[in-house]
């Protein structure tokens, strides 16, 4: 057993309101520099939808992630032999048009336009070349367009769903969508790191944060293609790849990452998971059906004396072990089995987990009357507006068992709370639902508390951490805002 600790995350999709505050918080701190305008280390997608970059989940197109080839785990996009040929031109690299060309507006024209018959306008200007630009796509162009034929209908997750199920998603009166905030998953088996020819990408041993060493990156772009979540971005100005750093300078000073901190829906949880690094490869090779169970099994019980001993032997500080014991992520993922990894079939073993969203309360349309009865209020999840299959594609590698389990338990929480507070559900029904959902009153109460009444301290359990580089002692890191950012003091000027 090789016990390591990992900062892990849970996003509770049932709580996300799609406000994009998280994206803006991140952009203001990290990606407001030249060359990074098009990057959204944190972005929020409407699902069903095509996402950012367009159709990122379609690995036929982007060749991201790992695949099992005759029992061996191989990157889809690159290998030791392929890189020799692909280093000049990476055939799987998205172009800026797959994201969008960033722009601002010619605001000056609003003030300086000569007098005329028309209102002056602020025309969009490209942030790449400063020329006027006709915008035909942007990040979140499909925001809230759950029923769109252009966007929602092209969601890669719809493949394998039948006509009826698709119709169920898009029927106007019952149109359904949910929000899917995404950051780097800080994977256990990161495809980006394994693909980097320079060895510039690395996982921090102490907390598992995945970073790009800016001084060693040489712009070979293999990481951009290899990450199946498309969460490494190429800075076209500096000629370096960049990605979500999980706000390590904030974590190192005990603060939650900016997107977590600012989250309006309070959907985000962060904490330590202890895991057994020896088993990473074995787990990543599991069959599709077993991937989720296998992934859960690599997470170790922080109360198990053997685990604690192994952690200490590996130099994990007691304060970190204690944080692991208090970790909300451990509850969601391991104990309650409510949170699931996104697209685990990419086999990078993501360490960001999602509580799958409940569909909107089911309404029965009877002629013109929309009605719901108390029993139907917590409808059978198989008749939810969001077809189970769709969620299974996203969170279950195509298998719906784990998703159904998570939804059923969430439903039991709601029924239980309703029985307590409103009282229009019988105790017998609630007890039956709890039984069916494989849960207990105590557990459901705890889930309810962590979902609805959680404080900052409940959501973010951050252990004391060691610093990447103690630069702030010598220099004010804010000096480098909009140029280098934190932690890196050589001016990020482009090479000749």
């Amino acid at each position, binding site marked *: 057993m090789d016990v390591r600790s990992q900062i892990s995350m849970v996003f509770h999709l049932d709580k996300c309101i799609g406000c994009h505050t998280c994206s803006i918080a991140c952009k203001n701190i990290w990606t407001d520099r030249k060359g990074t305008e098009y990057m959204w280390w944190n972005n929020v997608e409407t699902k069903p939808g095509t996402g950012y970059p367009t159709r990122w989940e379609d690995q036929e197109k982007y060749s991201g992630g790992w695949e099992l080839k005759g029992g061996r785990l191989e990157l889809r996009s690159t290998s*030791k032999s392929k*890189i020799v040929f692909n*280093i*000049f*031109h*990476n*055939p799987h*690299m*998205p*172009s*800026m*048009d797959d994201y969008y*060309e960033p722009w601002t507006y010619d605001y000056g024209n609003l003030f300086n336009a000569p007098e005329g018959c028309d209102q002056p306008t602020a025309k969009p200007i490209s942030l*790449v*070349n*400063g*020329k006027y630009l006709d915008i035909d796509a942007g990040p979140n162009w499909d925001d809230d367009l759950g029923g769109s034929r252009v966007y929602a209908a092209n969601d890669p997750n719809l493949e394998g769903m039948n006509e009826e199920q698709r119709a169920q998603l898009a029927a106007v009166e019952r149109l359904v969508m949910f929000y899917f905030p995404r950051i780097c998953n800080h994977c256990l*088996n*990161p495809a980006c*790191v*394994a693909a*980097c*020819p*320079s*060895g510039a*990408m*690395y*996982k*921090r*041993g*102490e907390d598992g944060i995945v970073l790009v060493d*800016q*001084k*060693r*990156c*040489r*712009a*070979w*772009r293999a990481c*951009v293609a290899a990450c199946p979540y498309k969460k490494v971005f*190429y800075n*076209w*100005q*500096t*000629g*370096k790849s960049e990605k979500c750093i999980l706000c390590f300078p904030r974590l190192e000073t005990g603060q939650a990452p900016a997107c977590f901190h600012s989250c309006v829906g309070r959907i985000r949880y962060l904490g330590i998971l202890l895991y057994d690094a020896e088993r*990473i490869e074995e787990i990543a090779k599991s069959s599709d059906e077993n991937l989720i169970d296998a992934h859960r099994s690599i997470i170790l019980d922080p109360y198990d004396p053997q685990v604690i001993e192994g952690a200490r032997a590996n*130099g994990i500080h007691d304060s970190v072990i204690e944080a692991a014991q208090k970790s909300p992520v451990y509850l969601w993922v391991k104990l309650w089995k409510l949170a699931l990894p996104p697209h685990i079939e990419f086999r990078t073993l993501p360490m960001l987990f999602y509580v799958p969203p409940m569909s909107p309360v089911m309404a029965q349309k009877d002629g013109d009357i929309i009605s719901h009865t108390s029993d139907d209020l917590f409808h059978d999840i198989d008749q939810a507006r969001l077809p189970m299959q769709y969620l299974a594609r996203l969170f279950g590698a195509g298998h719906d068992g784990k998703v159904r389990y998570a939804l059923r338990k969430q439903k039991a929480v709601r029924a239980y709370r309703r029985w307590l507070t409103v009282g229009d559900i019988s105790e017998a029904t609630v007890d039956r639902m709890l039984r069916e959902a494989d849960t207990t009153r105590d557990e459901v109460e705890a889930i309810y508390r962590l979902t609805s009444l959680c404080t900052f301290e409940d959501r973010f359990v951050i252990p004391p951490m*060691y*610093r*990447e580089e103690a630069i702030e002692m010598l220099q004010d890191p804010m000096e480098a805002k909009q140029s280098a950012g934190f932690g890196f003091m*050589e*001016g*990020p*000027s*482009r*090479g*000749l």
Partner: protein
Amino acid sequence: MTTFANYLDTVLFAVFPYVAMVLFLVGTIHRYRSESFTYSSLSSQLLENKQHFWAVVPFHYGIITVLTGHIVAFLIPRQFLLFNSKPLRLYILEVSALIFGITTLVSLLAIIARRFTDPRVRVVTTKADWFLYGMLLLQVFCGVYVAIFYRWGSAWFAASASPYLWSLLKLRPEIAVIAAMPFAVKLHIVNAWLVIAFFPFTRLVHILVVPNQYLFRKRQVVRWYRRPQMARS
């Protein structure tokens, strides 16, 4: 007049090469140590993804092959001459070298055209880049010209240029053979030293950091802050 020409030859072929080599060494090392951030291939593939393939890939294959030819002939001239002693082999070598040379030339033109015409790529093309493209174009053009008009270069390079280069390395420059060369050849040589001299100040530095270690390393990279003895695992 002749004395001036002699003088010029000495400066260009016996002095300038040393200046270029010193600039190269001091420049690249200093840049690596003080500004390692700027060592990058500065790819523009993100900004334009289609022409990129047709321009960049043949260029690299072309230039790598041609350069390898030069280096091999420089390192092992004797074997090279021996190989060429059979006419058929000489023809094959010459023809393929020419094909790669022309590939390099055409794709270099494509690279320059792409830099000119794509508005996004133009933004990331610096003055140093234009200067470099000028030097490279001259160099490749001269090379192809020499290959066509002064036939059997693969033979006489080994017999004349290679000894010249060795004499430079031995610090006893012998430039008599070079001085007698046609203008195009001389231009090719001087420009080569120019490229080497400017190497540290251009994007060419990416050649020095080709990631050969990837072929040997473990797949995953973990860096430890607290236990540097386990720097990688």
